[in-house]
Structures are given as structure tokens and as C-alpha cells.
């Protein structure tokens, strides 16, 4: 019974399966449109953002870890001092998201009933910095210090030997907060996954207040009033960042091979990596010729795809599906929104292209260290 459960989890947690499931389930959890909202309500998914939903979620996570603790294989990864923050992260992220959604849903109800949001304080709508805020912050600070001290006493820092280029650990893992990035490196060239994307993430988040001109939901939690924005952000945050960290922590073993949480990390496991570039697909597989010697000619299709995706697609959207929205926010905001949004979307797209077609790079010019 338990073994069956473990086997199922192992199968489900394969990145192809789990990522797909999460992506499909996501709009039903954070419904961006009325249609999703209807199903969200109909199948009671909305109860996740109620108190029973909280308890259920906490129990499910805890159950997973408890079973993992008593599993000889999962125990090894679970009890590593390095992975302790990830466990905390899973709990804290669930709690934080649940709490904000819980309040958002309550506010949504109040607004629907013509009431003011809970955060609204009549008449002056103010909070005292001193003593209220500072005092609370101070207490929180002390308690957090206590937590850090106790943690550092109980769990020794996982220090290793001086780095030796001749003896790299297998698997070589980044610090936990970078494991999402490291997971991206599986699908993208280092300069994209390691440089362009992190910069886009930071600048993109800084740009959100400038791109999002929706005045609703300022100063209080709400979901309905800005559900598309919430959906997009939460997808990026939870699936494309947190979940990738979890994968990197628990599911990536020796040789960066994928292992289910209850599987033994067998260093002998070999997975074929027969990835093919788009140009190879076009020239060799479809046209049955050799590769052109001219690099630009060779990669011409890749460039066309890239220009189409990043340059032409936004224009088409602006003229058709997003016509109203484009007019609402204007061309500058729209351009940036598309730049960041399409970049973000390219990650799952590239992941699926890899999984479905073994696609390595859309543009592959290793001669210039330029691969996309």
C-alpha cells in the first residue's frame, strides 16, 4: 500500500509529469477567467483557500515528509543539512500563499456584497509606526534571532573540504536558492539561463508596478479584481521558480539524472541525451541534406522562429486578441510586458520542446557561443 503510494509519487514527480500536471492544474487553482472560475467553484477547488484547505494542505505536506523520513532513500536527501531550508520553504510558502489567498477570497466576498475590504480602517486608514509596527517588528526580530541561534546550534553547518577541481561532487548542486536557475540550465545555454533570465527576473519584478496600471486591489488582498495578473505571477513564482528548486533539491541525483524521491540514487544510471538542434531537424531530417556551411544560412529557421516569437507575435496579438488591452496600457508598457512575459513563457515552451522533440537549441551556433 505504502509502496504503491511511493511508486505513484515517484512516477508523478518525474519533471515531465509533475510539471505538466502542475501547469494544467494551475489555472484551476488560480482561475484567470470565468470559465476556470466556474470549474474552480464547481469542483470545490476553491476550498483550498479556506481553513480546512489549510489544514488539509499542511497535513498532506507533513504526511509526505513523514513517509519520506522513514523511507531509506528519501531519508538521505531529506535529512541533509543543506536541504533543511527547502523543507522550511515548502511550509512557509504554502502558509504565506494560503494566508494571502484566504484573505483575498474574504475580501472578494465583501466587495461583492458591497462592503469595504477588511484592511480598510475607518475613518483615517492609518497604522501607527511607533509603537505598533516597530514594536512588533522588534519582537519578530528577537524571535527570529532565537530561531537562527537554535538552528545553528542543533544543525552543524554543512561545510565540505576545500574545493578540488579534480574531485567534484556528484551531483554538483548550487546553493538551494539557485537550484531553480540550475534547473533552467538543463534546457538553456548558460548565458541565457545564467545571465539573461536572472536579469530579466529582477528587472521584470521591478517593472511590475509600472506595467500594471490596475488600481484595484491596492492596499488590500484580493484575487478577483486582478486575477490574470495574479495567475501569471503565481505561475512564474510557484511553478517556474519554487517548484524547480524542489526538483533540483529532491529529484536530481548523480549525473543530474532525475530520481523519484523514494528511489535509490544509483550513480550507474544512464539516460541517453540524444538532443537535436532545430537546424538539424530542418536540414537533415526534413530536407535530407547535409548542414549548410554558412552559419547564418544553417540557423536561418531558428532566427525566423525567434524573430517571429519575440517580434511578430506581440504585434499580431496587439492587433487581435489583446487589442483592448494594448490600447489601455499603451505601446511602451505593452512592449515591456511582452518582452518579460514571452521570455518567461519561453521556459515551459523550451522544456516541452525538449521533452517532446528532443530539441536541443533553436539557434545553435557553438562557434560563437551563441545558443538559444
Amino acid at each position: 500500500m505504502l509502496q504503491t503510494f511511493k511508486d505513484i509519487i515517484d512516477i508523478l514527480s518525474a519533471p515531465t509529469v509533475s510539471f505538466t500536471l502542475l501547469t494544467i492544474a494551475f489555472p484551476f487553482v488560480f482561475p484567470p477567467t470565468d470559465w476556470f472560475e466556474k470549474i474552480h467553484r464547481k469542483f470545490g477547488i476553491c476550498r483550498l483557500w479556506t481553513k480546512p484547505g489549510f489544514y488539509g494542505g499542511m497535513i498532506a505536506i507533513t504526511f509526505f515528509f513523514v513517509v519520506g523520513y522513514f523511507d531509506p532513500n528519501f531519508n538521505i536527501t531529506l535529512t541533509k543539512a543543506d536541504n533543511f531550508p527547502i523543507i522550511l520553504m515548502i511550509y512557509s510558502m504554502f502558509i504565506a500563499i494560503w494566508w494571502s489567498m484566504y484573505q483575498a477570497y474574504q475580501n472578494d466576498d465583501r466587495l461583492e456584497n458591497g462592503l469595504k475590504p477588511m484592511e480598510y480602517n475607518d475613518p483615517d486608514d492609518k497604522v501607527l509606526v511607533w509603537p505598533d509596527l516597530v514594536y512588533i517588528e522588534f519582537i519578530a526580530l528577537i524571535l527570529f534571532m532565537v530561531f537562527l541561534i537554535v538552528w545553528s546550534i542543533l544543525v552543524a553547518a554543512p561545510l565540505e573540504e576545500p574545493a578540488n577541481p579534480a574531485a567534484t561532487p556528484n551531483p554538483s548542486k548550487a546553493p538551494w536558492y539557485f537550484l531553480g536557475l540550475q534547473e533552467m540550465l538543463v534546457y538553456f545555454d548558460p548565458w541565457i539561463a545564467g545571465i539573461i533570465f536572472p536579469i530579466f527576473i529582477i528587472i521584470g519584478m521591478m517593472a511590475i508596478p509600472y506595467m500594471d496600471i490596475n488600481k484595484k486591489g491596492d492596499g488590500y488582498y484580493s484575487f478577483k479584481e486582478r486575477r490574470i495578473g495574479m495567475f501569471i505571477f503565481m505561475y512564474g513564482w510557484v511553478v517556474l521558480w519554487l517548484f524547480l528548486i524542489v526538483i533540483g533539491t529532491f529529484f536530481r541525483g548523480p549525473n543530474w539524472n532525475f530520481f523519484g524521491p523514494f528511489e535509490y540514487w544509483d550513480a550507474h544510471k544512464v539516460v541517453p541525451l540524444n538532443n537535436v538542434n532545430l537546424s538539424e531537424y530542418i536540414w537533415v531530417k526534413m530536407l535530407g541534406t547535409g548542414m549548410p556551411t554558412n552559419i547564418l544560412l544553417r540557423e536561418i529557421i531558428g532566427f525566423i522562429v525567434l524573430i517571429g516569437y519575440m517580434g511578430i507575435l506581440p504585434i499580431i496579438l496587439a492587433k487581435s486578441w489583446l487589442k483592448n488591452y494594448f490600447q489601455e496600457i499603451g505601446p511602451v508598457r505593452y512592449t515591456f510586458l511582452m518582452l518579460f512575459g514571452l521570455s518567461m513563457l519561453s521556459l515551459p515552451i523550451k522544456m516541452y520542446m525538449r521533452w517532446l522533440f528532443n530539441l536541443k537549441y533553436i539557434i545553435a551556433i557553438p562557434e560563437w557561443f551563441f545558443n538559444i
Partner: protein
Amino acid sequence: MFKNDERYWNIHQLNKWFAISSILFMISFVWMFIDDNDDEYKVYQRNFRQLEIQMAEVELAEELETVKNERVSYEEKAQEAQNILNSKKSLADSLEFRLVTLKGIFYRHNMNYQGQKSEIDALKYLVEKDNTHGLDHGEDHSAENRQTFDDANVLLHNYKLKKEATETDIANTELFIKEMNRDVKASTEELNRILADVQLVQNKLEKIDRKHMSFMNKVGDLVRDLPILDFMNPYYKVKQIVVPDIKYNVNFTQVPSVDRCTSCHLGITNPDFAEAEQPFRSHPNLETYLSSASPHPMTEFGCTGCHSGRARGTSFVSAVHMPDSDEEKARWEEEYDWEQMHHWLQPMLPSNYTEASCFKCHQKEAYINDADQLTLGLSLIEKSGCNGCHLIQRYQERRKAGPDLAKVSEKLNKSWTAKWIKSPKEFRHNTRMPHFFGQDNNSSPDMIKRNDTEIMTMVNYLFPNGKEVSTENDHRFMGDAVKGEELFNAVGCRGCHIVEPDEANMSDGISIESILKDHGPNLIGLGSKGSAKWVYNWIKNPSEYWPETRMPDLRLSDQEAKDITAYLRSFTNPDFEAMDDIELDKKQLENIAFGWLSKMNTEAFAKSTLANMSHDEKMDFVADKSFRYYGCFGCHNIPGYEDAKPIGTELTFEGSKPVDKLDFGYIHDIEHVNHAWFRRKLENPRIFDHGKESPAEDKLRMPNFGFSDLEIEALVTAILSLSEDEVSLKMHADQYVSDELVYEGRKLIKEFNCQGCHIIDNFGGQIVDVIGSAEFSPPSLNTQGRKTQPDWLFKFFNGPTTIRPNLQVRMPSFNMTDDQWNSIIRSFQFADDQLLAYETDHSISWGRKIKAGEKLASTDFGACDNCHFYGSTFPIQGAQAWAPNLAMAKDRLRADWIVDWLKDPMVIMPGTKMPAPFLPTTDLFEDDDASNIYGEHLIALDGDTTAMLEGIRDFIWAMKGQKDISNIVKQYFDENGYNFGEEESDEEDEWDDDEW
């Protein structure tokens, strides 16, 4: 408007939260301090302190007990003196009072005097300035200044007189007091001398035991170890030794090792703790290690230089201790929560392998003292030919481990050779030739067929033109086997060979001593191998068949050689003979050839090449591939493969290879440490192929040597010794040996197994077990370096002559170069600190001494001619007592050495039957007929033993006569035979009866 009392939160609630969190913070803070200061080593140091206190108290009690009776009288005496002094108390008091007063007065006078002196210095300057510069701002003050200066000097003189007078008074008073106290002081000093040891222990206790401390010291002792304050001079602290000459490798750089081991191993250099519990026990070998008088003092060598491990670790686990056995591991896990720190690349060597570290500094020695396991391991590397396939830069092969196969067709036949290659141990149970076939990864029927075919191709190559040995004329080379056995045991064959057909009779253990016995092969089954003709020719002259062989020529006569041949041919191995011949499978031949061809070429090319090959070409092609695949040329000289590269992994730094570079394959029931891997590999070299699907060309191919557990442990020690760790050049032992030849000589001594027959460096001479008595065995070569003249020794090596006429065992003629002999001679000389190659001839002083010597050597006294040949003159006694020809001495021996030898032969050659000559003492000369008995010359020497010994030496030196008596002796034994050995016990009595 701002209202100060405006609150949205319940501030009392927040106050409570604040209180709770502050208390929690306080608790966690205290906890942090405790955790931070509660180091494991401090616990050990506290325990050690208790142990020291206990031991000191026991010692104190013992010391007090020792002086218990003695001290009483001294204490009484001291008391008495004190009483006398006490009776003069009033006088003493008044004197004391006077002294105090005088000192007060002196203080005042002295102050005046010193003050006046500095005044004078200032005035002196003014006067001197006047003397040289004259006017001061145009005015002349010189007379005035001079006057002041003079007046001041008068005053100073007054002060001085007063001061000196008081000084004298004080001195007198003090002297008086001292005089009064003299008895008391003397008796107290005596008492203290008796109690000195007690005092010593008491002082120690006062330092470490709070019970014995004063109150202030108690407080200090407590405070010095308090957190934060303990930065100054704590009692409990990390103790460390920085060893600049032993480096630890931190990937990119070599840093001096910093050993903190003594933080817990507190009694390591103190022999008093030999019985203490760990970690306090002292080092088991303080004579060689750690103590300041030893060759490896702790301050220069530290701990991890030899033991490895994490030098900076201050807890049991963080020092990366490594268990010796599974039991120890289980115990450690129980007691210390032990687990291996996987990230530390150099875990401690389990104590069983500690000797591995000796090699860091002792790389050139043939035998490393006190490191028998390592020496054995290194010897086995050479004997088994490991370094034939595995390059070891610092331990390169000196010669191929196996025999030369260039002329093997003269020696063997094909069928035997094939069977031997397939399973050598079936023929000779203890052969060093390893098993390549019938192993874990090549025992499938297909593989056996393949291997048989490979074997046949190799055999085919080794027997070009199809020639092989025949036994047709064997009867012509066989003599009397019984005589042959006698000779075999007597002439020296047993120095290197055993003949032991039964594996069960082999001794269990292997050691550096035991490998001296089977230096050469175990000579069994020769009746089933090759031909008598070959054996005969081989023992007659080994280097004719194989110029590089180590087998020496024993100068056997034709008949002797025939007898020995008959004896050796009498051992047969019917089981081996009955084994099926190895068959060549033509299909396999095709397969193997195709496999190799297509590995390097396209299949089409492989096919066409194969189709164009004749059968012989295929045979040669597969033979070539097989030789190169199995690396046969690592151990054997095979024509055509003289320059072939060794096939194995380089082992130069194998001991430092990170464990993740070792392929554990699918073997999981093994510790992930390098020595466990080496052990398993040596037990079963193919084990890590287990479960793997490799093509035949890629299978593991290290052969199975059938090593015993002891051999494996020794080899693992040797492999671990090949480490990357650097030690400064000055730590290398060879820095203390001026001459490279010395090491070369010692290696040659080992390589040619000289110690099979001779004792050299207090090691070897195992042939005595066969001969039965040291008297009839080859001589001990103790002091050889200063015993013989180097040029004589060189000549002797090149053409041995009879020295000890009563020995049946022969010094063989070795086929060595001048370089090699020079190295051997140099190593002898070095051992005896005698490095001169050329020396002035000893000149005899023709006078009283030599005459006295002649007397001492005469029949009346020494009767040297009882045993020694005087030239061609036979000794008086029978052959069993014969000793070297004294006429040869001046050519052979060094003059100084003879005197040393005569002084006490037993010191130089324990067990010798040579007695020390009788030397009369002066009291004997007082007898009436002394001059008749001793003669005037001897008496005139007046009991000077050195002069007498020199006299004997000169007598021998002056002796004339034939020097080489080999032929005379040989002739004698040819006529009379050698059979005195059996009556030996009787002979000994005769010596005991002698008056000396």
C-alpha cells in the same frame, strides 16, 4: 493632532510578547555559549587532569613513604638547630632591628650620593664646555664654574664616605646574622635535599589540583577558563604542533600541517601513561617516535605526517579516525557516534597501515627498519612484478619479475607451456606466476574457448619454427638422485630454493624473513617439465641460457650437476601431466582476430583484411594482440616486445587517489575507502566487473596472484605508501647518506638474496635452518665493511676462493658488473662507517710486540694452528674445526679489524667458535717461573692488551705461505668426503674442555 497615547494594538499584550521573546532570546544566548565552549577535547583534558592528579597523589604517597624513615633524623637535626637559634632570640631580634635601622640610614646616604652625582654630571658639562668653547655669550664664567664643580666634588666625596661606612656596617651585621643561622640553614638544606622528589610532586599538584592551591590561585584557575576570558591563558585549550617540513595538500598548494592531536592525546609522549585508557595512552614506540631523543621527535614530525587524518580536528569524528576492523567500527559508532567524514580526502590510516607513511621519507631503502609490513609489501611488488605493468615512478622495476622467454623453446614443450599459462598453480602451488584465466569474468564456456585459443597463439609465437625440447637424451644428464639431494642441501641451493611438493606443508605466515627462503622457484615437478639436459646445462651455467638471471653459478662439477639434475627430475606432477591439452579453436581465432581488427577499423576493412590473412598470420596477429592485452612482457622478456609500454594504471600516487576515482562497479558490500578497494581488488582482481556487460576486449584483465591475507595487507600498505604528500627534502632519509651507491648496494643485496645465506644488517642467514649449525653455514657479514680490504673483496666476488675450509656450502659466482660489486662493497663500508677505498698498507713493527704475539699464538697459548691453516700447512685438528688460512689475512683483512676481532670474536660474530686469545695479566708475571712461561717479550709488554693483540695481528700479518688453498681443501674432501657434520655435538664438548 498627534496623541501620544493613541494605540491600535493592545500594548500590554505586546509587552508580554516582548517579555517572552526576550527570555527565549536569553536562553538561546546562554545555550549558545555553553554549546560553543563545550568542546570534546575539553572533556578529555578535564579527565586527563583528574588522571594526572590521581597519579601525582599516588606518586606523592610513594615518595613520602620512601623518605618516611630517613626524614625523621633530618627533621630532628633541623629542629635542634632551630632550638639553639631560638635560645638566642633576644640577640637575634636586636641584630635584626639594627639591620633595619642601618638599611634606613644607608638609603638616605645613598640617595644623597646619587643625587649629588647627577648634579656633578651637569656641572662637569659646564666645565668641559668652558674648556673647549671658551666664552658664553661673550662672558667668561669658567673660573666660577670650576669653583662650583670642585665644591660639589668635595661634597660628593663626603656622601660617598658616609655611604660606604654604612655599607660596611650592614655587611658586618648580615654576616653575623648569617653565622648565627648557619646550622639551621645547613640542616634545612639537607632536609630539603631528601625531600626534593616530594617537593617536585607537590609543586606539580599545586599547579593542577585545586585542593592544593591557595585561595587566589583557585580563583585564578576558575576564571582563566571562563568564556571570553579564556582568550588569555586558559588551562583547557587547543594544543597544536606546526610542522613546517610536512605538507598537507590543499588542492592548489602545500601547507604545513598543523597537528592538534595532542589536544586529546595528552599523554602521548609520557611513558607513565603506557597503560592509560585512550586517548591518554603514550605512543607504543617512544624509542623510535616522538620522544626528543628519538629519530622522529614530535616537534619535527608531528602526528599526521605518519598517521594522516584531519590534523586540525579536535574531536574524535572530526579528526577522521579510521577503524582497523568491523568490530572496531561498530564499537566506535556505539561509543563516539563515529561516522566517516567523507569530504576529507586523507582519512587517518587504520593503525594496521600506518607503516605506509614511512615511505614518504624512506624511499630508497631496501629494508625499512621497524616497517616490516611495508618492506614486505614493497618486496612483493617487485617479486610479483606489479611494477612491470603498473608504473611506479618512485619504485621502478629493477628487472623483469619472470624468466626470459627468448629461448623458451630450448627449455619447454608447447603442451606444457600452454597448460602452465592457463593454470600455473596446478603445476606449482606457490608460484608467483598469476592466473589470468578461469577467473570471475572469463569462466563462461565461450570465454574459455576464446582464452584457450589466445593461449595457443601465444605459445605458437614463443616456439618459432615449431622447435621444442625433447627428452630423448635425458639419461646422459642424470646422475645419482640420492647424492644429488645431499648436494642440493649442502652446496647452497637452499639459500634461495625450497622443494616442497605439498602445499599443506608450507608455513602459514609470510614475512620478510620467509621470502628469503623461496627467493627462487619452489623446485617441484621438474620431472614433468622440460628436459634433464636443460636442467643440467642451466645449473652448470645459468647465464648462458639467460644472461640477466640472478641465479649464480655454484661451480658444480659435471658429476655434481648430473646428481642434482637427477634429484630435481625425481619430482613429477602426474596430475598436471594428466590435464587435457589446450585446444585451438579456429572459429574463435577468426572471432578474436575480427574483434581486434574491427575495434580499430571499419568492419568492411576488418573483413577483407581477415580474408586475406593466412592461418599463420592470424595466429601471429592474435598472439600479438594477446601479449599486448595481457601485458605478458611486463614480467617476461619476449622477443619483439622489448619496448612495449606497460599496460596497467600508473600507481605513482595511487595512495592519494581520491576514492571516487576508483571504480567500485556494482559492488556495494564494501566500505568506500581506498584501502578496502585495494584489498578487494587484490583478493579478486576481476571483482569490479561483476554484473557488467563488457565485450571481451574491455574486460578487466589484472591477473589473480592468489595472494594470502597477509600478503594483501602488506601490498595494501605498500600501495597506500605511494602518496602525493610532500615532505621537505631535509626530511628524506637519503639526505643523511652521502653516496647513492650505498642504496644501490643494499638493493642488490636484496635482489640477489645475499641474506638467504648471510646475516647482513642483523637480518637473514636462513640457510642455517637447512645446514643445522651456524658453524658450518655461510658467515655473518657483520662488520664486513671494516673487516676486509675492498680490493680483496672485489677480487673475491669476481672469483670466489675457499676461505672457510670446513664449509661445504659454496660462495657462488654471481654474474654481476663492476658497478654492482662496487655498490655492494660501498654499502658494506657505509654500514661500518668505513668509507676509504684506498688505505696505506699496514707496516709491521719488528720488535717486542711481534715476538710477544708469536708467543701468544704458539701451541703454549693460542695454538692458532689447531684450527687455522698456516699457508698450505694443515691445522692440527680435524676438518670439522678448520678455520681460515692465516697466510691470507694480510691480503684479505684490514689490520685494525683483526685487533677488534681478537678482542672478542663473539661480539662481531655471535656463535663463532673462535675463542678470544688468552692474554696474561700482570699478576701472573709475579710467579717465579713467569719468564719461562711467558717469555721476556710478553712480560715486557706489561699486560698491555692492545699491544698483545697487535702483536698477534703482526704475527699473522708476517706469515708467509700459500694464500689460495681452494685446491688443497678440495682435494682433501674429494678423498675423505664430508661427513663430520653429523658428529657435531661431540665436537662442541671438546671446545668447552679447553682452558679458555
